[in-house]
């Protein structure tokens, strides 16, 4: 098989890893952010600690802990699942902060207007603050997503056969010039990253147009 096709065969795994980790992060990040903003100390402090730890430990160490470390306790995840869990948890920590930044960027008067109208807090968050916070958080979320795509390459170290895994394998076999092979792998990551960047800018512009129309 053509070595470049083999590398390309790792692309779906890289994409799946990115999408699943981002989806987990986006979902879990929301309650994590709410807990981080809670008035009750016993909720806020653990949430803040969790966010700090998730972000403080290098992704590669997390993946090693989850894949190799947990095995010791009898929890043996497949490489792919371990990578999704690890990168998803890290994403939750980052996205919780991205969401929080988005909320803080919304003018305080928006909350007050909701309060003054007697809107239930839930409705104020959901229909007034969230749409605006999302708009403010989008650039930071996209930047994080791009970083995440590149971080999926770390999954190679626990044996997930994604793009870098296949590229390294082909390079070691010497089926083609290692330089060409690794540059090709790099190109694939670049294409994914640029695609996310372009999509984010488009979405950003569309959201802006809606408000200014």
């Amino acid at each position, binding site marked *: 098989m053509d070595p470049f096709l083999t590398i390309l065969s790792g692309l779906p795994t890289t994409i799946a890893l990115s999408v699943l980790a981002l989806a987990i992060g986006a979902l879990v990040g929301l309650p994590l952010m709410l807990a981080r903003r809670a008035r009750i100390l016993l909720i806020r402090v653990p949430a803040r600690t969790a966010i700090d730890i998730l972000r403080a430990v290098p992704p590669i160490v997390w993946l090693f802990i989850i894949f190799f470390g947990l095995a010791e306790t009898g929890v043996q995840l497949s490489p792919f699942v371990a990578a999704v869990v690890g990168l998803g948890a890290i994403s939750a920590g980052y996205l919780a902060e991205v969401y929080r930044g988005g909320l803080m960027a919304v003018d305080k*008067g928006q909350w007050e207007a909701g309060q*003054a109208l*007697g*809107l239930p807090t839930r409705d104020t968050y959901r229909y007034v603050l969230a749409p605006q916070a999302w708009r403010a958080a989008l650039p930071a979320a996209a930047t994080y997503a791009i970083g995440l795509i590149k971080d999926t390459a770390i999954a190679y170290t626990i044996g997930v056969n994604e793009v870098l895994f296949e590229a390294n394998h082909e390079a070691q076999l010497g089926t083609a010039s290692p330089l060409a092979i690794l540059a090709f792998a790099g190109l694939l990551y670049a294409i994914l990253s640029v695609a996310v960047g372009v999509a984010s800018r488009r979405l950003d512009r569309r959201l802006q147009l809606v*408000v*200014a*129309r």
Partner: protein
Amino acid sequence: MEAAANVVVRLVDVTKRFGEHTVVDGVSAEVCKGEVLAIVGPSGAGKSTLLRCVNLLEQPDEGRITVGGHEVDASRPLARGELAALRRHAGMVFQAFNLFPHMTVLENISFAQTRVLDLSRDEADRRSGELLERVGLADKADVYPLRCSGGQQQRAAIARALALEPQVMLFDEPTSALDPELGLEVLTVMRQLANDGMTMIVVTHEMNFAKNVADEVAVMADAKLIERGSPREVLEQPTHPRTQAFLRAVLER
């Protein structure tokens, strides 16, 4: 004396501190149905904070607040339901309009009706249309707020507050962010509201509005309500030296 049943807003010994600083110091006041009370005074006197205490956007440290027959003891923590019940009766108009930028003008006015009054979207939109007519913005229904002038935004904000049929409208320097011309269109709408019998508390630097539209003028300085009476009494024959100094400064500008 007005009958007690006619009192829409009653403040008793309302005090608000920010840390060491007392911003509102033991203010008591009553506003009766259909009355327009203008609160004037130097910046930093606590006028806006007092107004924000009325609908509990600021929780006072002491005092009792009654709005539309709903009374709360402001010195203790208030439940969300209690807050909502009181705010239900008070409409608020902010200096910075605070319209929801991601909703059209019509949606801004309809939204709370569907959530707070439980009206259907169609019914809410119909009522919003009437309100927009009333504030002269019928042609702006489907426009987003940021595409409107400041005066139009403020009129939309007034319509949004009116949509919940409040018993009193609170205005927090509603024209301070507007140039004179746009301010005038807002003042015209407010004057119309007053003529229609709406009970209003207006924190303002617009002395002409206070003189010509308000039934009563209250002067606030250094966290206290120092003088209160008819516009003629307060603005033309002020008794308190602090009021005299303030009015001199306003007139000399």
